[in-house]
């Protein structure tokens, strides 16, 4: 659920990057942080171990578009991918507005991808949210590696639901399709917000228009 500050005319959306351990979630945020002009972003907060394993979460605030007179801000988070940090994932996923599920394309990560995706569903359910109700996109990462599964198998594993979401083949280390993924999830959640909550902004006294 986005945070709407009528006084400051700001809407904040929370986008969470989920996926198995070491699939490239933090790499996505690092790349985004490196490309956004400092005036439009905050500092990237990353709590990681020496082995680059995200310990708690990464956080990157971004300013973006004007929506019905409101300045929209996006807070990008990642969750720790390791199985044992499920409580942290649940915490980070609270009030999530959009999800990027980052899948590791390597053959030996398929089971972890499936487990991570299920874990995402379960954690959303604990917030009484269905994945079908949350804007999300898939990012099939590490497509530059040799030992990767075909995209149709990844689609079969992760995108074989009634709702087929957008998916992007990416190489987060170089930035291929990193912004396309972020743009896609942003589009979906803004459309959803416009559809479901757009009228809220026009409430008298709300200063929406």
């Amino acid at each position, binding site marked *: 659920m986005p945070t709407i500050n009528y006084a400051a005319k700001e809407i904040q959306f929370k986008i969470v990057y989920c996926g198995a351990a070491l699939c490239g979630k933090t790499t996505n945020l690092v790349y985004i942080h490196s490309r956004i002009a400092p005036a439009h972003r905050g500092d990237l907060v990353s709590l990681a171990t020496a082995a680059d394993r995200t310990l708690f979460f990464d956080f990157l605030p971004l300013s*973006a578009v004007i929506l019905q007179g409101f300045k929209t801000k996006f807070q990008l988070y990642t969750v720790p991918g390791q199985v044992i940090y499920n409580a942290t994932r649940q915490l980070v996923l609270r009030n999530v507005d959009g999800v990027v599920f980052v899948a590791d394309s390597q053959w030996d990560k398929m089971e972890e991808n499936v487990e991570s995706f299920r874990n995402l569903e379960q954690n959303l359910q604990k917030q009484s949210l269905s994945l079908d109700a949350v804007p999300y996109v898939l990012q099939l990462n590490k497509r530059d590696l040799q030992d990767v*599964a*075909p995209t149709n198998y990844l689609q079969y594993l992760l995108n074989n639901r*009634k709702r087929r979401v957008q998916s992007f083949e990416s190489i987060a280390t170089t930035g291929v399709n*990193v*912004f*396309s993924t972020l743009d896609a999830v942003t*589009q979906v959640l803004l459309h959803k917000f416009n559809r479901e909550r757009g009228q809220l902004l026009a409430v008298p006294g709300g200063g929406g228009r």
Partner: protein
Amino acid sequence: MPFLNWFRKKSTSTEAEPKASSADKSSPEPTTVIETASGNSEQASVPDTPSTEQQLTETPVIPLSAAAPPEPKTSSTAEPASTPHLSVPLGAFYEKLPPHLLASIRPDLKRLIQIAPEDIVIEENAEEATVPLSILSLSCPDIFVRPVAASDEIPITFSLSGPVAASAAESSQQPEAQPLKTAAPPEPGSLVVPADTRPEEGSKMGEPHPIKEQLTESGSPTRPDEIESVERQPAPTVRATTASGKINLRDVTVPVDELIRLRESAAGAKPLASASSGTEFSGHTSSAEKEIRLRLQSVLSNLPPGLEQPSIQDLSGTETEIVLPLDLIQPQLAQGRVVVSAATFCKALPDDLKPHFEAIEPSTEIPIPLREIFLGLPHEAIKLREDQEMVHPQETIQTPFRAHAEEDAKRFGLEQVKVNSERLQAIFLTDETLDLPKTITKVGELPGLRSCLLNTTDGLKLAGGLDSPDQEQAVSVLAPELFKEARSKLAEMQFGALETITLHCGRDQLSTFLQGKLCLTVLHDNRPFKPGIREKVQAVMNELVL
């Protein structure tokens, strides 16, 4: 002799079928019928079992048109598949197969292979049957050194007067026989011999075949234990007559002893359970089931450390292949991991290698590498559900992220292709706004195609994909070169502009379109272009501009 009576009476009652026939004709997706019933490529769905009362009062009809693939068998009580097939011993045609295509190991010529009725043409007078070689290669791929290509295709004719038995396909899947005290209707799919193998006159090309005749007598039992009642009889042949003068399977000579033997083996056969529910695997698979070949070395190199025993390490470098039923593998693919029990794994091993694995606990899970599985996996094994709804916003909100995405796309050579959404929408008859990825996805979803790759003539991938990244890389480079070469050679002849080239390879067929700097390659779904599809892809190419 109820069994014989059942045959005789049923064979004269073919006129009772028009109602069912019309129902069958109304089945949508006629091409699906052909594909699902042919060459054991897919099994028809199990029809709903009518109530006992209905079965006793109505002539049971086994529809062959399959709208959905069968559910994986997950328990030993699963209903048997009901697609009728002809069982033919390998020996009936083995000597007529091209020797250069045959594997060096001579198979057991008594082994029965099963052929869908649609794929066989019966010569009434000569008592001969003809089957395309490619169908045989699908039914018993293990006897061939490689898949039969279109260029290898020849008709194989064999005699029906020998031990050719018409039987139901479920000979290895029939549940255990139940004592039957009263007359009972036949099980769906049991002892069914299809009537006509060709569409009726006037039927359109590609329409489902007319309803197949079920050789049962209403109320007459056909359970295996009933068949036992004629077990001691001499082996007469039963000739089923036909009301139609067309080529059909009713005149197939059916040795009763062969049928009895089939039914007995069916009654004793254990159905396959899914691996996840405790694997049962007899160690060999019938040719009617799909199998998957795996290199043993690949499996061994992925064994968990706890299983790497010295006796197994001795097998390093082995070139042995094992064969596992696809039914065992396919249900697990959605988990991202495939395992079989050590007991099952050992059964699939050649006898001389089994001692190497004796020390492993039978219930231990042996992981099968996905990469190895995908080398021989039929593409339909991982098809996406057909009722999916695409989630794409129709309108675009301009965000700073989009600007960055476009910048990156230029930097990486992506998304430079301009698409005319309205014209593409007209081609695909959709209201959905189409961008490049969506367009290429839609091309790959056209009937008869299974995937699509768009790349530049420089080999840069733009959208879509093929079965594997290796394929994509190779095709991205090879296809444009091949096309340009062919085009330059053909330009000297007066055939007109080259639009498409189709390559028929051993396993796959792929077609390439070239337009300016864009090269589009599609993988076919077993068969060449269906009518109108090539032209549609060409029209799409005309709308893409780099």
